[in-house]
């Protein structure tokens, strides 16, 4: 069951975390309930997310060679532990399907209108299954390879939006006009769970990271930078679309970039956004699928490569069946899922793990 040893370098971790955080969050309308203060909400959520990830890391350093599932089994025992691992498997699979659906919605409403969604879902999940089948290192190297390209595209898009001058920073006012409540309700539960809390899936591979001393720095910078990019996108979206239009848009970043016209040469840049979405979601879905497969490995002793293709097919089907309409998808994804699925899996169970591990260690002494 032990496969070839590989280590996750700090650079790879950095790239993976940034792409993971941007995945779907950069295009979907996150934090829009805070209106013109969405960027404040995102910035605050980044700080909280950074703390949350620090907590996950602390959990990991309690047993440095253990992954999430081994920690669960260690602290909850054989039967309850297996049950919780099964819950995580379903959870990761479910989130993978949700995220994949974000991408499918974008593709089928903005690019390939007439292509059946099944074809899109299966071709996408086959690529991911193939990546996982080649080994976890491939996911990391894919992320590492695409990272500079994605950062370059985002930088160019930001610059073009700024050069185009079709924005009014005036739309960002009034700052905190309705008090802190709208911002807080945007942060909790939506923003800290999506995208930052979803980093819990990193616990599945965190024990591969080396050298351990630089993990903290790499991950902190990654979360900070991804939060900066997300907040920056929110600022540009609000300034160029206005609050109401941003709130109405299904993919506000796409709409913002669509209008950019620079020198009659840089036009119709939305395909660049679709590409950013494609790569970031590729990374995100493959990490979640890898998490689910690792859980299956723990539960049923099936090597994760063997299960990669069938489980990827399952994720593709789930992503289609998860919602009948776009409205159902976004409503569930942004109101129901954070409260009733993300919070228990990202906060409550890790907290329980932390307490049990602490108690166990104290008893050992």
């Amino acid at each position: 069951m032990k496969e070839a040893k590989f280590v996750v370098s700090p650079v790879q971790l950095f790239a993976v975390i940034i792409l993971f955080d941007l995945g779907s969050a950069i295009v979907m309308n996150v934090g829009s309930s805070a209106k013109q203060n969405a960027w404040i909400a995102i910035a605050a959520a980044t700080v909280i997310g950074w703390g949350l990830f620090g907590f996950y890391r602390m959990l990991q350093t309690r047993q440095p060679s253990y992954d999430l599932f081994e920690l669960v089994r260690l602290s909850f025992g054989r039967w309850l532990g297996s049950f919780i691992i099964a819950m995580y498997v379903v959870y990761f699979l479910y989130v993978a399907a949700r995220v994949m659906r974000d991408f499918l919605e974008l593709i089928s409403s903005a690019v390939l209108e007439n292509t059946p969604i099944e074809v899109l879902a299966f071709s996408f999940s086959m690529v991911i299954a193939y990546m996982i089948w080649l080994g976890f290192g491939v996911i990391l190297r894919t992320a590492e390879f695409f990272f500079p390209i994605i950062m370059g595209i985002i930088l160019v898009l930001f610059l073009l939006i700024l050069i185009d001058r079709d924005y009014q920073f005036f739309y960002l006012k009034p700052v905190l006009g309705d008090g802190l409540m709208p911002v807080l309700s945007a942060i909790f539960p939506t923003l800290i769970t999506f995208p930052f809390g979803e980093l819990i899936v990193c616990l599945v591979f965190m024990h591969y990271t080396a050298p351990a001393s630089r993990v903290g720095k790499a991950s902190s910078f990654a979360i900070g930078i991804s939060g900066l990019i997300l907040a920056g996108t929110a600022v540009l979206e609000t300034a160029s679309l206005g609050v109401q239009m941003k709130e109405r848009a299904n993919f506000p970043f796409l709409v913002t970039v669509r209008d950019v016209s620079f020198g009659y040469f840089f036009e119709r840049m939305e395909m660049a956004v679709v590409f950013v979405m494609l790569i970031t979601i590729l990374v995100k879905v493959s990490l979640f699928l890898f998490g689910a497969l690792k859980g299956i490995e723990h539960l049923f002793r099936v090597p994760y490569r063997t299960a990669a293709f069938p489980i990827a097919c399952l994720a593709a089907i789930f992503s289609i069946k998860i919602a009948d309409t776009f409205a159902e998808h976004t409503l569930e994804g942004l109101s129901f899922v954070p409260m009733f699925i993300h919070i228990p899996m990202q906060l409550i169970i890790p907290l329980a793990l932390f307490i049990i591990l602490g108690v166990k260690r104290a008893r050992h002494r």
Partner: protein
Amino acid sequence: MIGRMVRQMAIVLILGMLSLVGAGCWDMRSANEYVIVSSMSVTTGDGANYHVYLQMINALEFASSRATGSTPTYSIDAEGNTMDEAFGRIERKTARKLELSHMMLLILDAKLLATDKGLLFFEFLESMKDIRNDIQLVVSHRVAASEFSKLYFPEIRVSTVKLRRGLDSVEANWGGSPNTNLKQFIAAITSEGRQPVMSSVTMKLPSKQQQSVDAGKSTDSPTELVIDGTAVMRRAKLVGFLNTEETRDLLWIQDRIKDTSLTVQCGEDQYAQIRIGRSTTQLNVDYIDNRPKVKISINVEGAVSENQCESIRLSKISGFEQIRKLTEKAIQSHVEATVAKVQKKYGVDIFGFGEKLMGDHYQTFKIVKSHWDDEFVKAEVAVDVQAAIMRDGMISENLFRDIPGQSE
């Protein structure tokens, strides 16, 4: 060995099938299935809500080797209760699909904007992925919107392009048109502190001749396109028009003036012309004693381009001082008059004072936002103009002074 070959062949076969199936033929588009739409004119229909005229490009005329001198654009119309229904009917007439992403102008008939359902189809415009947000909106003033899709001008053969360039140039060089694209219009119509405007266009002497390619054979074109100012709206309804001079005041308040030129009177039937090259406006809106208090500070920089006045000698410091005062007065009184006219006659805040109040004094604005337009009517507006007129062409002294017997 053989087993391996079979496996390899199987992989090649599977990959081939996958690329066939997965290649995405569903969204294949080829150019000859499409006809390019350049503009869209909408008016009320007889049998349905909307009557749509589309101006389409006859692409063959633009391929230099295959141009035959026939018309470069043509117009096809249909009615529909939804915009997409009308488009569908037009598609049945053209026998091709409509390529909407190059549409640059949406011309709305004044008749349509008088009804309640005038702008319901904007939902389609906003959510349709092919229609870009930078499509310009204009209102046809005094003529039917459909007329604009049928014109031919020899210098720019697609009349939509001529109109669009005209709008851009009038706004940039004179400040006479409040160019509004779809995004800006939607931002204004959904704003709590501002009412939307659009450019207004009209035609002098609409004629059948201008609808023919033969119009290019005459040096005197019978019909003229005129960009004549602003259409003032109350949400989705048209309430009136402002002429180009008043439009400039609107743009002045909104800090959108780039270049303009001002005629000031400096004596009995004597005028001077000032070219403004730079202008910035600062807006201050507050709410004091139950009425909004608006302070508009305009800073302009310019030069005298023509001075017909005997009394003003631009070789002296006092001459520039006089011109400066006249300019400031002219701008100030004109801007004040325009605001007063909009307050009295239309009663809608097209200037965005409410938005400014919202940005700076949000708590106050929350109290008055439900009836902001009534508050706007009560607003006390003070305009303060600072002009810097620095030079006057190559020769400062007026030549008329040297004509014997002309001056004192």
